[in-house]
C-alpha cells in the first residue's frame, strides 16, 4: 500500500465548551475514494472545514505526504493541494462556464487582459476529461443542471492542483440520474490514480458504489473505519445509524 497523501492524527476541535471533534484519525490515499459517513451533527462538516483551512484545530496534527502542516487560511490548504467542493459549489450563476472556471485565478495577458480563447479551451478540455462535453463555454452556469455544475466545480479544483479532493455531499439535492452522473465523474477522477477523494455522503448505496475505504463519525468521534472488504452491508448500516442496531431502532419506532 502506498503512503497516504493526507493523514490526520487525533484531531480535536472545540468551539468554546462544545467539542465538535474529539480526536479523529483519518488517512486518505491517492487513487482511492474515502467515504466519510455520519449523521447530521456527527462532525463531518467541522472535519472537512478543518482540513480546508477554514477552522484551525484545537489540537492534533495534519500531515501531507508525511510532513506535518498547519493551515492558517483556506489559501494555505489549497496551496498544499487540498481542493474542497462545498455543497454550494462556489459558482456564480450569471457568469459563463469559463469565467466561473477561472474565477479569482484568471489567465492574464498584458494590462490584466483575459486570455479568453485559451481559457475557453482549457475549461472545455478539463470538463471533457471527467465527462462533460460542452460545445459552448460562454454558456451561463445558471443554465446548467446540478450534476453539470458539480462537474464544473470538480474539474476546476483538479485543474488548480487539488491532490485531495473533498466533496461535500455532492449527490444530495440531485435527481437519481444526475446522482449517477456525479458518481461517474468521481470514478473518472479516481481512475487518474493520483488524486485522493474524500466523499461525504448520507447515502449508503452511493458509498457502496464508489467507496474504497470508509470512516464513520458519530458525535465527533470515529466509531468505525475500514476498507470496503472489511465492512459488510449490515455493519455499514449499523455504523451509519451512529452505532445503534437497526433492530433497536425498529423497536424504538414501534414503541412511539
Amino acid at each position, binding site marked *: 500500500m502506498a503512503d497516504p497523501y493526507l493523514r490526520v492524527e487525533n484531531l480535536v476541535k472545540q468551539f468554546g465548551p462544545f467539542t465538535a471533534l474529539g480526536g479523529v484519525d483519518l488517512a486518505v490515499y491517492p487513487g482511492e475514494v474515502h467515504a466519510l459517513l455520519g449523521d447530521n451533527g456527527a462532525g463531518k462538516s467541522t472535519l472537512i472545514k478543518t482540513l480546508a483551512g477554514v477552522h484551525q484545530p484545537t489540537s492534533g496534527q495534519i500531515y501531507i505526504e508525511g510532513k506535518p502542516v498547519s493551515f492558517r487560511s483556506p489559501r494555505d490548504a489549497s496551496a498544499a493541494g487540498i481542493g474542497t467542493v462545498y455543497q454550494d459549489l462556489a459558482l456564480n450563476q450569471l457568469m459563463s462556464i469559463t469565467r466561473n472556471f477561472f474565477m479569482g485565478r484568471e489567465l492574464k495577458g498584458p*494590462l490584466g487582459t483575459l486570455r479568453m480563447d485559451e481559457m475557453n479551451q482549457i475549461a472545455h478540455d478539463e470538463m471533457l476529461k471527467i465527462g462533460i462535453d460542452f460545445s459552448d463555454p460562454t454558456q451561463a452556469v445558471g443554465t446548467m443542471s446540478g450534476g453539470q455544475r458539480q462537474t464544473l466545480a470538480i474539474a476546476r479544483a483538479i485543474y488548480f492542483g487539488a491532490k485531495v479532493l473533498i466533496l461535500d455531499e455532492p449527490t444530495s439535492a440531485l435527481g437519481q440520474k444526475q446522482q449517477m452522473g456525479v458518481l461517474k465523474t468521481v470514478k473518472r477522477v479516481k481512475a487518474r490514480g493520483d488524486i485522493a477523494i474524500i466523499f461525504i455522503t448520507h447515502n449508503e448505496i452511493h458509498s457502496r458504489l464508489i467507496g474504497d475505504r470508509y470512516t464513520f463519525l458519530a458525535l465527533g468521534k470515529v466509531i468505525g473505519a475500514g476498507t470496503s472488504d472489511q465492512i459488510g452491508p449490515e455493519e455499514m448500516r449499523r455504523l451509519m445509524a451512529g452505532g445503534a442496531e437497526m433492530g433497536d431502532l425498529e423497536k424504538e419506532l414501534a414503541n412511539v
Partner: protein
Amino acid sequence: MADRSESDRLQKESRFKQLIRRPEMGAFVVMVVIIISLLIASDSKAFNALGLKNNIKIIAQYGIIATGAAMLMIAGEFDLSIGSMIGFAGMSMALMLKWGLPFGLGEATPFLAFIITLAMTLTIGWVIGTIVVRSGLSSFIVTLAFLFFLRGTTEVAFRLINQSTQVSGLPDYKETSWFANLLGGEVFGWFYDLWFKIGQWMTAGTEFPARLPVETINYLALLNINRRLDQWVTGFDARFLWWIVISIAAWFVLSRTQLGNWIYATGDDKEAARANGVPVNRVKVGLFMFTAFCATMFAACQVFDTNTSDAAKGNLMELFAIAIAVVGGTLMTGGFGSVVGVVFGAVTVGLVANAVFFIPAIDGAWFRVFLGAILLAAVFANERIRKRITGGI
C-alpha cells in the same frame, strides 16, 4: 459522452437571435424610438448643429456618472452620494480657485484645485467603501448618510469661506490653462468644420455640384448645415470626450480584464467569489472610489465650463445615475450589466431631459413621468433576463 445529451438541450441560436436577446437590446430599441420621435416632434431642431451640442452636453454628463453607478451596481452595491459628491467637488474647486489653497498655501491653479479635490473625493469614496465592507451594512443606508453629510458640508463650507452659497465671476481659466481647457473647453471641432463645409458645398452657389432641390436645401438649413460663414458652433463640450474615455475604459475593464471578472463575481455571489480567492472587499472599495472619481469629473467639467459653482449642484444626480444604469440593463441585484447598455440609457434619458428645450409646447415635468415609466419597464425587463439566465424561464 455521458452528459452530452443534456448540454445539447441548450439550443444554439442564430446570430440574429443572439443579438436581439442581448441585455442591451431593450435600451437600444427605446433609444432609437426616442431619437426618431424627437426628430419628428422638434422639426429636426433637436439635431441641428446647436441642438446636437446641447443634447450631447446633457447626455455626456449623465453618462459619466451613470457609468460609475453601473460598475458599482454590477458589483452589488449602490451609491446615493454621487449627487452630493458632485456638489462637494464643485465647491472644493470653486472655493480654491477663488480664495486660494487651504492653509494659505497661495494661489490655486486649475490643475492644483482639481488634484487636491480629487484626492479628497477619492478618500471619501474609500471611506464610504470601507465602512460598507467592514460593517456589512447596506450601502443604501451608508451612502444615504453621505448624501446628507456631503451636501451639508458643501453648504457650510460655502457660507463659512465665501459668505454665499455660490461662486460666480471666476476668470475664464480656459483661456489661460490647458488643463482647464481640457475639462471645460471644446473638443471635436473638426466635426462641425466638416459639417458646415459639407453644407456650404451642397447648397452654396449654382456651380458644381448642381444645386439641390429647394426642399432638400430647406431641410438642410434646418440642420444648419450651410452656416459655414457664420458658424457659431465650434465644437462639443469637453465632457463628451471624457464620457467616451470613461465609457471605453469601463467597457474594456469589465469585459476584457481580470478585474472585470472580479467585478461580476463580486456582484453575483460574493461568498462564491471570496471562496475562489477574489478580493471582494478591495473590488468594492475600488468601485466606490470610481463613482467618486466620476462625480469629480462631472463637477470639474461643469466648473471649468461655466466658471461658477453653487451648493445645489448635482442635486438628484445619484438617482438619475442609478435610473440610467437600470434602463441600460444593469441588474439591481448585481452581477450583470453592460457599459454599452449604459451608453444607450444615457442617450435616451439625456434626450428626453432636454426635449423641452426643442419642443416648447410640452411641459418639462413630462420628463420625470417618462423616466418613471421607462424605469419600471426596465426593471421588469431586467428581471426577465435574470430569470432566463438562471433558468427561471
